[in-house]
């Protein structure tokens, strides 16, 4: 697996250049590579899972330093439309990468201060061409804080990272506080699924379902990432709540008669995963929101004091520095109003 | 039933290459036409043209007075059978199955061969003296044996005219003679035969007509005695051949034999 070391939280200042303002500093990225980067970052390029990576930059309030556009595979989907709302330049910036390959010459032409990626190979390739590539990655869901910390170091904004950590812990604690009071028999059995292809697409769902006080029906199964299951297995699990990945899936669940005996279908408890900066069911720095949202879905009574609408607007303003309108917020939350 | 195949001023060959020009002959049931000619002169090409595998480049080919293009494949196959050079098919069919395929032309498209068709096939196999092969796998018999099976298949087809391309070329001495005998019997049963051979003796032994094709498109047709002369063989094959008469001591027949002379 990943060889991520816990990163050093103090920025290491490079070679005894204490006197005036040092031009560069050295940081250690998620996989332990030492990278010397300019003190002040004016241009950043994100490569690979751009949807996730950009959000980290937005969290620093530095969305306008992003110098690349969304690759077609992201730009074509409306899941990432807020990226170019946060920084309109993203819509017109050159695309440096398309999943298949980084166009090195375009990258050189942009001449970014740093390149963020989640993949060590890509980082090496870019570093080979004389640019600063930083691997940003994390293994356990909680370690997303470390990733934000790393960004804090890069942008010299440790206080913002600190704030995120606090928000993260506070939100999870708040949910846990209420959720832990729910008795075992009242706990709901939950399945996060792409219903069309009968799969549970990401192992992180086990984490946020648990954090939100639910019982994940796929929880006991040993696996790395995605999991496919048979229809019959689904009937056997008989989840009470299903989180699906698209509106189509939701319609499918209600229309296909093979699903009609499922608790979740009978009780109309099928919900579509929201997407704001990134898709909430996946690995993203919006994970605290995912937990909060899930908890409220699972136990509307117990969490009725939480106003998801307000929480979302607050988060957006605090971390993405964007004031969401009510309509926007409602649209994002979809099923939950 | 009489049936006539007429080749009128035919040109044949490959898309960018004409091999034979202006060939004419005709053959009826009961005839045995033996085609002689050097390697690469176009004997196989002519056969493929008659059978409609190659496009006719000129002239016309009439079967029973009608252009062969107007015949359906099925009716054509009922009239004319073909023995190709031996080859290996990729699947291990039994010899019986291969021979019974000769019955195809006599079956409706949705039908399979009946027990009667199998009986016909087995009779033909018997008549060629290869019944020991009936249950052998076609891909596992020797080249000569395969040639015999293909002949059996064409006989099972019960055509009026049989076209055979070097039917004896991989056969041993005995099988050659047996096949030639068979050919003679067939002609007695009023079947017409066109065959190629590299042996002028075969023309004497079994044919009623000979077509000798020489390089350069010169050709000659007639009875074996008229055509297969020492001079002609010399011209076609570019060797000295002496034609002698030998007396069959049992039947007291006079048999013509061609003797190639090695000495210069």
């Amino acid at each position, binding site marked *: 697996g990943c060889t991520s070391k816990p990163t050093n939280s103090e920025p290491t200042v490079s070679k005894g250049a204490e006197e005036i303002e040092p031009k560069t500093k050295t940081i250690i990225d998620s996989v332990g590579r030492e990278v010397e980067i300019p003190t002040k970052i004016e241009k950043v390029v994100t490569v690979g899972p751009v949807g996730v990576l950009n959000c980290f930059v937005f969290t620093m309030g530095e969305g306008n330093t992003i110098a690349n556009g969304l690759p077609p595979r*992201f730009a074509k989907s409306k899941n990432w439309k807020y990226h170019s709302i946060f920084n309109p330049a993203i819509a017109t910036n050159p695309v440096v990468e398309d999943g*298949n390959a980084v166009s090195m010459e375009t990258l050189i032409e942009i001449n970014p201060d740093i390149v963020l990626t989640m993949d060590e190979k890509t980082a090496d390739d870019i570093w080979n061409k004389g640019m600063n590539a930083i691997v940003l990655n994390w293994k356990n869901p909680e370690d997303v804080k470390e990733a934000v910390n790393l960004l804090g170091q890069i942008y010299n904004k440790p206080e913002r990272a600190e704030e995120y950590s606090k928000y993260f812990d506070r939100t999870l604690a708040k949910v846990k506080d209420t959720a832990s009071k729910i008795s075992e028999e009242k706990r709901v059995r939950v399945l996060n699924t792409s219903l069309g292809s009968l799969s549970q697409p990401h192992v992180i769902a086990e984490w946020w379902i648990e954090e939100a006080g639910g019982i994940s029906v796929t929880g006991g199964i040993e696996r790395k990432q995605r999991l496919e299951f048979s229809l019959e297995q689904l009937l056997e699990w008989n989840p009470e709540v299903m989180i699906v990945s698209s509106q189509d899936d939701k319609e499918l669940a209600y229309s296909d008669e093979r699903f009609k005996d499922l608790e979740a279908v009978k009780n109309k408890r099928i919900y579509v995963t929201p997407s704001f900066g990134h898709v909430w069911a996946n690995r993203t720095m919006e994970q605290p929101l995912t937990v909060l949202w899930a908890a409220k879905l699972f136990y509307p009574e117990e969490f009725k004091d939480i106003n998801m609408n307000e929480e979302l607007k607050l988060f957006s303003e605090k971390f993405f520095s964007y004031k969401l309108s009510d309509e926007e917020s409602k649209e994002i939350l979809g099923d939950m109003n | 039933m009489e049936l006539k195949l007429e080749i009128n001023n035919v040109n044949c060959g490959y898309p960018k290459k004409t091999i034979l020009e202006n060939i004419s002959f005709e053959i009826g049931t009961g005839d045995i036409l033996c085609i002689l000619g050097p390697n690469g002169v176009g004997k196989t090409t002519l056969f493929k043209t008659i*059978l409609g595998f190659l496009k006719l480049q000129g002239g016309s080919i009439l079967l029973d007075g009608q252009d062969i293009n107007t015949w359906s494949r099925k*009716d054509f196959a009922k009239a004319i059978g073909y023995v190709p050079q031996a080859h290996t098919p990729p699947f291990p069919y039994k010899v019986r199955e291969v021979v019974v395929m*000769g019955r195809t032309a006599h079956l409706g498209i*949705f*039908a399979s061969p009946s027990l009667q068709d199998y009986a016909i096939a087995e009779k033909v196999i018997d008549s060629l003296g290869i019944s020991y092969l009936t249950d052998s796998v076609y891909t596992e018999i020797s080249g000569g044996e395969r040639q015999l099976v293909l002949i059996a298949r064409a006989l099972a*087809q019960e055509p009026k005219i049989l076209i055979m391309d070097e039917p004896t070329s991989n056969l041993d001495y005995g099988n050659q003679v047996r096949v030639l005998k068979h050919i003679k019997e067939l002609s007695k049963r009023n079947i017409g035969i066109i065959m190629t051979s590299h042996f002028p003796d075969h023309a004497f032994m079994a044919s009623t007509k000979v077509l000798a094709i020489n390089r350069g498109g010169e050709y000659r047709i007639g009875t074996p005695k008229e055509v297969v002369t020492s001079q002609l063989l010399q011209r076609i094959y570019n060797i000295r051949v002496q034609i002698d008469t030998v007396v069959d001591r049992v039947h007291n027949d006079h048999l013509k034999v061609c003797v190639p002379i090695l000495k210069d």
Partner: protein
Amino acid sequence: MVTAAQKKINNKYKLLLLTIIPIIAFFLSITLGRYSITIKEIFIILTSKLLQKDIDYPKVMETVIFQVRIPRIIAAMIVGSSLTVSGAVYQGMFKNPMVSPDILGTSAGAGFGAALAILLSFSSLGIQATAFMFGLIAVLLTYTISTKVGKGGNIMFVFILAGILVSTVFQSFISLSKYVADPYDKLPAITFWLMGSLASISQRDVYTILIPFLLGIVPLFLVRWHLNTLSFGEEEAKALGVDTKKLRFLVIICSTLLTASSISVAGMVGWVGLIVPHLARMVVGPDFKVLLPASALMGSTYLLLVDNIARSVAAIEIPLGILTSLVGAPFFIYLLLNTRKGWN
């Protein structure tokens, strides 16, 4: 010496056996699955359904049996039959025992159709329809190119070439679709669709596939004996009195219906159409008279068994395509090496 009549009887027994086995397999398969129902319960539910009695068993059991298991079992059998029959027929027609049913581009075409439909967020019926359509389009393209290009000469060779061409082009289109696919949703969907699965078969899918199955298999069944002649090559078949052009056209149409419909419901299930015909040929010989029904029966049994493994071994479904490859490839080689009679 065995006479032809004895032979026929011998083959009758073999076919009878080959018919009984899938029937038994069918009933055994109903008892398999992740949802636990006892054999007794199954028996009661089945019989009361047959006798149209009211059942006082949980509704969900009925759903499991009639909406989930039986459709999946039937689909597996139809797909297995279809692929095996097309494989057998193509191997004969192309005189090449290494040919599989997608030689003319069906699976690349269908795969692209599916990828496109997934990209456009079509429903599952939409995906099936698009896959089926593009499967047909690919073969149509191959056919058109071949007949345009191959005047006389070795038409079968031209067919294979054109098939390779069309397959590659559609394969590139699949890659291109992956390339623009949303990586969080569409890309996995396309990737896993291509791996093949029968996991989400519904009753409706069974009806959907049944029509092209019948349209494809019945004509092939009727002309099956004549298919033998094609194994001897274009020229010999003609000389035997077969209108090869028409027969070939029929074979291609029927096989394509079978293959395209199979792929459109089951994804890319490899190796079945390549190996089971060989297995069948080992048992009953190469004569299509018996080979065709034997292929249909053995193909259905084979895929049913493999799918039973896929769906009931672990909570995680193993993609059918992977399973058939891992089971099929070594088996195939074993077969070829041990029955190498004459294919070299």
